[in-house]
């Protein structure tokens, strides 16, 4: 009964590349499972949240079930 949480970019330095969290998982549960500095970093509203590969327009509406994957995506840089 778990949800995979993936951390991209500099968030991976704060929380590891991937964590398993207990299902079901909502936004408050996700925050509670994070170390303090990762929680602060995620306070930045530019950090997006994807649930099973779909971006959530309201990340606080997260409702993840057993086997789901959630990803936290900080602002990008590429090219």
């Amino acid at each position: 009964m778990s949800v995979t949480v993936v951390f991209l970019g500099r968030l991976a330095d704060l929380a590891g590349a991937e964590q398993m969290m207990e299902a079901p998982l909502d936004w408050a549960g996700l925050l509670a499972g994070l170390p303090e500095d990762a929680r602060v970093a995620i306070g930045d509203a530019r950090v997006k949240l994807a649930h099973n590969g779909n971006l959530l327009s309201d990340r606080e509406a997260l409702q993840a079930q057993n086997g789901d994957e959630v990803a936290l995506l900080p602002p990008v840089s590429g090219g």
Partner: protein
Amino acid sequence: MVMRWRCFRQSAVVEAVTDIRLLETGFSPGRGLGKFAQQVPEAGGIASFVGKVRADDGVKALELSHYEPLTLPGMQQLAQQTIGRWQLDGLLMWHRVGIMRPNAPIVLVSAAARHRRDAFEAADFVMDHLKSDAWFWKRERRDDGWHWIDPRAADHDDLARWG
């Protein structure tokens, strides 16, 4: 990996060769462009851009990470958007991920069109979006370790040109 998309553009069906790839290993821009050109014999012009890891600034290596469920679908959406906006015979978009050495190619974009302006603008548009509106995270290794790179303000300005 080469596909043909059909899109509706100003009430006309247009067909363009697309070749969109995320690459885990190195590639040759010259060979990629040569093969692409053969697939678009009707095109009068091909505008291309090659971006490389800069060989200066004490950068030892560059790492590009991506998120599988979003990055490639995002590039495919960008391709369709580009094909819908300019009249193209073909669009190539290759992007490296993983760890790269200085001078290694990171990105290759090539737009083939009947008219020169369409080719130039489409390639420029794709690059601006890959640079600051695609799911890539970049960090550089210097003598003192790894450093995450944020987009430059100039990249956001470039993107804003397209409205």
